[in-house]
């Protein structure tokens, strides 16, 4: 297992360098003044421009710039935001809120998604299965901001069950609605994936052999069917964490959740290019770390991965 972790960490290194380089390249290798481009039609304050020039080492050759920037990231320095506040300070303030929201959403999508997918798969072709399939298909087709607005409209405005915007401090009860919205898309995918995975696993030889051994259905479903069906679901969840990040940006923006996503959302809306770049970088790093963690988890789930190769 230690070897496996080591290899995974080693493999993550070029991806880290590659992604940060790609972002940096997109922003700063373009002809013309990258900073002016980043501000679009706005004319930034010369003092701000000067500070940013210094921060991004724009007086240096491109490749040197990049490594200085990468060095900054590795030291935890993501620069300062438009307002002059260090990005790390903003993160310290907003991250706990986002984590709270994300954990709630993950709980909803995983627990509910896997459960509904499992029931659906075990009762293939029945009413429950058919409804789950239709509902999940519709959920997948709805863009997250549409879901957010519909939820706001129905539960916030029409029914008055929830606040349309989250109050300061982001208490748990205020986060329930945004968490459901955030969870909805990946939830639908997890339902469908779990379902097809369960159906496939059910027909595998070792399940028949488990019945032949005299095991009861109550034992076979969790131990042999569900356990094996989770492997592709976890793989999917990791790669689709990006959808969750974008979703968090939109959801936090719409529900005014004071998290990392809203900061990015507002920076985008206001056209504060440099801040956008910093926060996108932060999100990509989060994505990398989550994928790494899931990869390691995957090793736990599937012994063939752990020992072979």
């Amino acid at each position, binding site marked *: 297992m230690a*070897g496996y972790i080591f290899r995974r960490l080693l493999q993550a290194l070029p991806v880290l360098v590659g992604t940060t380089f790609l972002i940096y390249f997109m922003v700063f290798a373009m002809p013309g003044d990258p900073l002016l481009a980043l501000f679009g039609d706005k004319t930034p304050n010369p003092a701000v421009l000067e500070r940013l020039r210094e921060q991004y080492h724009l007086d240096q050759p491109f490749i040197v710039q990049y490594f200085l920037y990468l060095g900054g990231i590795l030291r935890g320095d993501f620069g300062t935001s438009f307002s002059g506040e260090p990005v790390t300070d903003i993160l310290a303030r907003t991250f706990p809120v986002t984590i709270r929201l994300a954990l709630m959403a993950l709980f909803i999508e995983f627990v509910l998604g896997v459960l509904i997918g499992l029931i659906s798969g075990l009762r293939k072709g029945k009413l429950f299965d058919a409804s789950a399939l239709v509902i999940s298909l519709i959920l997948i087709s709805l863009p997250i901001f549409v879901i957010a607005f519909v939820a706001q409209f129905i539960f916030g405005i029409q029914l008055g069950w929830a606040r349309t915007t989250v109050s300061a401090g982001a208490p748990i009860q205020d986060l329930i609605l945004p968490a459901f919205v955030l969870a909805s898309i990946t939830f639908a995918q997890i339902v469908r994936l779990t379902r097809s995975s369960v159906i496939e696993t059910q*027909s*595998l*030889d*070792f399940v*028949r*052999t*488990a*019945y*032949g*051994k*005299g*095991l*009861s*259905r109550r*034992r076979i479903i969790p*131990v*042999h069917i569900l*356990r*094996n069906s989770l*492997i592709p679901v976890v793989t999917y969840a990791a790669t689709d964490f990006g959808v969750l990040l974008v979703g968090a940006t939109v959801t936090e923006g719409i529900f005014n959740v004071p998290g990392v996503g809203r900061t990015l959302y507002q920076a985008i809306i206001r056209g504060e290019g440099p801040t956008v770049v910093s926060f996108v970088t932060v999100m990509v790093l989060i994505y990398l770390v989550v994928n790494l963690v899931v990869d390691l988890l995957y090793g736990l*789930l*599937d*012994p*063939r991965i752990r*020992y*072979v190769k």
Partner: protein
Amino acid sequence: MTDVTNQKPLLEIKDLQVGFKTTEGVVPAVRGVDLTLMPGQTLAIVGESGSGKSTTAHAIINLLPGPGRITGGSIMFDGQELTSYSQKKMEEVRGRQIGFVPQDPMSNLNPVWSIGFQVEETIRANGIATGRKAVREHAIQVLKEAGLADADKRLKQFPHQFSGGMRQRVLIGIGLSSRPKLLIADEPTSALDVTVQRKILDHLETLTRDIGTAVLFITHDLGLAAERAEQLVVMYKGRIVEAGPSKEILQNPVHPYTQRLVAAAPSLASRRIQSGTAATPTHSLSDLDYAPTTVTESVDLIAAAEERLEQVPKGPSLAKRPDAIVVKDLTKVYNIRGQGKGKASELIASDNVSFSVAKGTTTALVGESGSGKSTVAKMILRLEDPTSGSIMIDGVDVAPLKGRPLLDLRRRMQPVFQDPYGSLDPLRNIGNTIGEPLQVHKVGDRTARRERVLELLDQVALPQNLITRYPNELSGGQRQRVAIARALALKPDIVVLDEAVSALDVLVQAQILKLLADLQAELELTYLFITHDLAVVRVIADNVCVMQRGRIVEAASTDQVFDSPQEQYTKELLNAIPGAGITLGV
């Protein structure tokens, strides 16, 4: 078929009907099967794929897949009517009273749980032992019994760390762990190498005899069935066509279908040749006038083999023929990326292999999985580059050939591969598939190519209207015939048959072997026949090379190898041919 005994039957099946629900209604798979099995007895159900043999076995403990249902009849087991049992009551029967050993050891253990976990859960579920320690100890005992010496160390390992044979031992251990009165063994060793198969079946026999367990044995191999069971039941299209004592059925098959099977089974054929019964075709099929006569008549393997031999002396005798292939010191070394930190290891797949094949003859390269036989074939076909050594085709070393000369070589040497479902491009029609060689080598114009394709279809006894059809409309045997037609399209001298008949049912296999023999005689082909099945070799090959771990351990004429094998390994292989212990002869 009621038996009158002093004992009550352990299992008595009467008029069993099983159907599969489809959108077009219920398709019957088992149509009125009667079976009686006495305590401690062994009974084998033999049949081809689709005969309903496995379905019958699965129906007993209700392991039928989703759409399968018992639609009629009764299954009495030890005083219980199993057809009336609920899923819940059936759980009590499975494992405890009736053990089950499945077919493919690779797919029948859950890959994410350790071996120990999977044995222990069985012990717990069947109430054999309770308490952590007792269960563990019992699990070790079960695995030891199954023939895993270091069982206590292996409990924590996962299925992928076990070889196929070891996994099958685990499955047998699980099946017998609660000392059931009946064990259902569904092709328990078909996926294993013959020598492993033999060891495992011997072990199973000893175990069940000691425990006194009756065995219901499902197999497609008539020789294996007769060797392992006192009683034989032959199934065909969901019905029993013949049943009775094994030896009697083998020696005196009455039903024409059984006669077909006996005539076509390679394991029995090699036995029959040895015991000299070949000359008396008691069950020659040609005179069964009620068998429907079609292009695809039944084949007697021995008759085919003799016919082949008769045709050979027409040319110069074997010894005087020039060599078509001479392989010298052929070596292939693979570098395998090492397990763990950068350790690279070498795998010698072929180790100084030398042999020759005379023009117009067949040499068989025999070996178990991993013996390197396919690597040698691929090097001769120039699909793999040899590490060292030479391959002379008609006196020219072809190992270093490139470009045009290599393309010319390919015209003269063509392969037929094993997997009937992978050997044809599923998106190209049969005409295009057979015509591809002509197209690639720019032979003739469009009409000439079409003519040639039609001619080839005739040669392999396929109707011409298949030319616009696609592979998935054909059976495995028919696909292999198409593959043979493709191989023959360029009129090659040499055909390399890499397990070309191994995946086919016996009757179809016999048919293809006969076709190959006829084509060889007609077109003076040289065959290099790669197989794991020594039994088939007897009826098709003139010379045999036995390979083990990348080396040729014995090379001689077929008769010499079968009659007086020199090497221990060859003897083992010969002994492992199912049915080797049966005396035939009328």
